[in-house]
């Protein structure tokens, strides 16, 4: 059925208390009365954040939000908006009374370009506990088509042609990774979904899993078929209890429908999925540490080579992909590689889910095409800097991303352009800081995160992050010296070069960025004993014993 409009009524507990049921029924009556039932679809909606304007209704495609609704408003909306095609006056919800996902929809109204929603197409709009909802929106179609008509190699070729790159932070070409695993000889192979999302400020994977778990389940099945695996694991961060619950339910539902398990859809393809919970370690987001953790050992990254594609879980060829990467798979397989390439840039096609946080007017989750600039994101989706402040720096990609100064605000956000400028997109978190934030303080917060999350296996990271933190704290207390900056540069250079895994190597990057772009501010802490933004304590007391790194040439 091709509906031209859609009405979603909020069905969360608070809305229900205030008569959402009656409103929903009234909508149905009004729609039927005007014989619009074949043109206008009506459905429930669960996620309204902490909005106060409930019960509310969203009318698509205009994304108009009406609320708080009274029973008598329904007639007006159906007649004016759905029948006559104009916004019903006086009934729209005030923006300040909206929050969460619903606020987004509001933000996009009017002259704003609509988000290009490929990955977040359904999250927040369907009932994630209903497999029927997913199926109704072409769910499991891709899998069925593949099992019936495609060979594994064809699947991989299509993913390669799409140009999809890993969305967990590394940006490795997904199709190529699939090919590595597929071409490694071996009877037993595994696919793993890395849902250990622990980058501070990143919660895109959580929303994806909680809002649209079946999409990831289907993607895992497709991946397994393509590489020749018959068993898969979701490694979900321990704190994401709801996500784990939704996944387990989704797997159970899929199994009941014969979409997982033995002989899926009669094709002879077997695939069993498990959900494994992490236990509070950022390092387990690193793929080999994740595998170690799955095997029941300490989550410490392995020495590479060999890589998981040849020697992964239990020593078998293993494919590890991020949740967001996987979310792209069903759309690509349904619509084709060329369609996907219609979004984003040539080298970085597709969209990226970003989280905007910090001192902007509207924060939250957005899906934007690769290649958009930071300035556009802030002004369009963030609705500008909050309280009229000015953009100073952004922390991209969580802790292992980079710190972007204002000079890079207009650089396209794709893997290449950022890399050329010595910065990285990382996981897509964007922490926007204004002139009231201190660059040194940001460095301290990040380094603190790294030293606490370091696994402790290799000494450059285990000891280096601790030392760098101590030096930074001393500077923040106003007892830093210019020698300390030399020591920091020395530590971060060696952290980047000598560490065993990404945690160590990217611990140095934000520090280097800050020293590169905000040196005057850092020097003010040292030479003038002043924190320009007034954030750092500057107590004059040593936070940690001062020991300096005597240059090794003297040794």
């Amino acid at each position, binding site marked *: 059925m091709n509906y031209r409009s859609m009405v979603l009524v909020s069905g969360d507990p608070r809305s229900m208390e205030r008569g959402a049921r009656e409103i929903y029924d009234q909508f149905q009556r009004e729609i039927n009365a005007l014989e619009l039932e074949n043109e206008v679809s009506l459905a429930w909606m669960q996620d309204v954040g902490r909005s106060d304007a409930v019960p509310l209704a969203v009318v698509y495609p205009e994304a108009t939000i009406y609320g708080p609704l009274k029973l008598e408003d329904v007639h007006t909306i159906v007649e004016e908006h759905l029948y006559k095609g104009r916004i019903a006056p006086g009934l729209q919800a005030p923006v300040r009374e909206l929050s969460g996902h619903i606020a987004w929809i509001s933000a996009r109204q009017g002259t704003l370009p609509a988000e290009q929603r490929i990955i977040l197409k359904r999250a927040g709009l369907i009932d994630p506990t209903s497999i029927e909802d997913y199926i109704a929106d072409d769910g499991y179609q891709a899998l069925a088509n593949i099992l019936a008509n495609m060979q594994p190699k064809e699947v991989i070729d299509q993913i390669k042609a799409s140009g999809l790159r890993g969305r967990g932070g590394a940006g490795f070409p997904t199709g190529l990774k699939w090919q590595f695993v597929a071409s490694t000889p071996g009877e037993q192979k595994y696919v793993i979904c890395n849902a250990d999302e622990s980058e501070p400020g990143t919660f895109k994977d959580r929303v994806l899993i909680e809002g649209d778990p079946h999409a990831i389940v289907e993607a895992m099945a497709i991946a397994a078929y393509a590489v020749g695996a018959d068993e898969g694991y979701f490694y979900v961060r321990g704190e994401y209890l709801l996500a784990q619950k939704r996944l387990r339910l989704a797997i159970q539902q899929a199994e009941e429908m014969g979409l997982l398990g033995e002989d899926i859809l009669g094709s002879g393809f077997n695939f069993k999925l498990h959900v494994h919970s992490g236990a509070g370690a950022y390092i387990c987001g690193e793929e080999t540490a994740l595998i170690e953790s799955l095997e029941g050992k300490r989550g410490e990254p392995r020495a590479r080579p060999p890589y998981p594609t040849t020697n992964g879980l239990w020593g078998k060829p293993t494919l590890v992909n991020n949740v967001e990467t996987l979310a792209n798979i069903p759309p690509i397989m349904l619509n084709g590689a060329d369609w996907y390439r219609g979004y984003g840039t040539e080298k970085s096609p597709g969209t990226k889910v970003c989280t905007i946080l910090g001192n902007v007017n509207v924060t939250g989750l957005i899906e934007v095409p690769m290649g958009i600039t930071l300035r556009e994101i802030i002004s369009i989706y963030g609705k500008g800097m909050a309280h009229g402040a000015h953009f100073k720096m952004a922390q991209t990609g969580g802790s292992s991303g980079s710190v972007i100064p204002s000079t890079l605000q207009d650089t396209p956000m794709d893997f290449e352009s950022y890399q050329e400028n010595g910065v990285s997109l990382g996981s897509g978190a964007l922490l926007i800081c204004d002139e009231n934030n201190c660059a040194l303080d940001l460095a301290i917060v990040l380094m603190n995160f790294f030293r606490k999350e370091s696994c402790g296996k290799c000494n*450059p990271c285990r000891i280096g992050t601790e030392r760098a933190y101590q030096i930074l704290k001393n500077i923040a207390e106003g007892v830093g010296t210019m020698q300390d900056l030399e020591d920091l540069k020395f530590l971060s250079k060696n952290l980047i070069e000598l560490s065993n895994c990404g945690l160590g190597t990217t611990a140095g990057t934000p520090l280097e960025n800050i020293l590169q772009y905000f040196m005057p501010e850092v020097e003010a802490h040292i030479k003038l004993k002043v924190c320009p933004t007034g954030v750092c304590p500057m107590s004059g007391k040593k936070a940690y014993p001062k020991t300096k790194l*005597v240059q090794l040439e003297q040794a």
Partner: protein
Amino acid sequence: MVHITIDGKEIQVPEGTTVLRAAEQADIHIPTLCDHPALTPFGGCRLCLVDVKGARTLQTSCTLPATDNMVVTTDNERIREARKFVLTLLFSERNHFCPYCQVSGGDCELQNAAYEQDMTHWPLQPNWNKYDLDASHEYFILEQDRCILCRRCVRACGELIGNFTLGVEERGADSSIVADLGVPLGESTCISCGACVQVCPTGALIDKKSAYLGHEVQLDKTESICIGCSLGCGIDIYSRDNRLVRIEGNWDASVNHGVLCKVGRYLPHEAENWDRIYTPMVRKDGKLKAATWEDAINAVADQLKQSSRTAAMASTRLPAESLYLFKQLFGDKLQADTVTSIEEGANTKLAAQLAADLGSPFEGSLSELEKADCVLVLGADLVEDHEVASFFIKRNVPHGTRVISAGCAENAIADIADVVLKPSGDNYDNLIQALSAALADKPVTALAKAAGVDEAAVKEAARILAAANFPAIVYGEALLKNASLNTLKALVELGHLSGAIGEQRNALVSVKGKANSMAAAQYGLEQAMEISDEQAVFIALGDDCPSQKLIKRLENVPFIAVQASYSSQLTAHANVVLPVTDWTEQEGSYLNLDGRLQTAVQPIAAPEGVLTNAAVLEKLAAALGYHLDAAGWKDELLKRVPVAIITE
């Protein structure tokens, strides 16, 4: 084979070889800390970094597999800076007080690595955080100040021993080596094997007994074998000024590859607390008084001449050469009523009989145990009596090795077993037959019932055995106690049915008893000693400890002569005591449980006035007017059909 170039040298190595091992082959030295040839590579210390052409960052050579046409540089400016950085950080992390550390001055791999990089000071000072000292363990200390978190100890405890007591708690800068879930070592599941102490590169794990008694260059090293049990593990004995300092496992020994148990590593030090006998003694007027060798020997000889019933018993800790002399004197010449070993054949007689019947050895090699993917242990308490053999099993369990434990008494192997069978009445006959029946798809019910075990358990055990590619069967004293020749025949059949005995391999092994249990068997020293109206009993005890049972049995014997190293109730009760060397003061040959003939080398000079076991027997023979052959010990050893093939 892959071709790799290191520092300009072209070499060929088998695929899978790491760059570090390839460099070692080419005599190129790369400094390491967390690496150890007996352990899996870790790649954490970052000292072994090398420059690989085409790689963006330096790579750890200890983990990097060599690939064809790889070009490696092990020494350049970048690498030297990296090494200095790594060492700088390590010294700054904890509190390395070299001045008073016992390994400082040559035995500390961390200090050596720093000196090798021409570092004479720490570019970065430590924060002087406090770290703990755990001295609760009886034999060693864990000094956290000196730990560099190389994880060698954790890996050794897991990979070599299979005990998994040591682990790492917390993460990052809070990481710390810990026993179990954070208990003092003295209260932990540690079994005092000392592997961790042996592999520790710094002074973090220090042997209590030998601390400060000398650096390795000041000590004398003797490669020998342990005679704590029938395994005969290879050891390195460190001594100084004629005193035992420390025993370590010999990494190159074929029996144990470097691991030892508490009995071999630490128990020998207990002898320092025992009363040593330095002079012969003869009982006069009810009291033992010092005597000359001549008087003492004559006292024994006189008694033996006039005794109508004599029994002679030799400890299986004695070297084969001495056992040979013992057998000649008391067996061939004196024709004593009982000539036997202290084990009285309990561990060997039946098996020897079967070998004689079959006309050939029927047992296999202990090294099969190291590769077994399924082990059936019947009537042997490995952890208690032959602990190193239990390591071979325990450490493979995480790799999938299945264990079936069949024993009437409790034993520690049962804790890690997949199936535990407890046959009733200390009788294994029916159990063995039940297992064979299950393997051959024959009815099991009646046999299982007769054995007193659950039928389903028997079937499960058989299923596991059948599924194994390299099964092994180990049996011991408890099985032999109530066994008959038929029991052993059935066991051999089980071996064939299960695959433990096949065309290419034989993995059926009995653990025997003490060090020279097998040699005693070869010399026929297997009689049961009946004390009825014995007038004289001679015990060639050596440095063994007599059991309470033995002492009680000999209570009423009118004349007892003992050749022993240490005082005991037996020597206190004896009529003549002849002082002999202990195991470190003598050289001799030992036949281990699977037929390996090894030599225990003498590291320490015997005390003045004390003779070797062999010398005493020869003296006694001379006093009795007999001439004993010394040289033919080996020929005699090889005469009887052994239960396992004898190799040298």
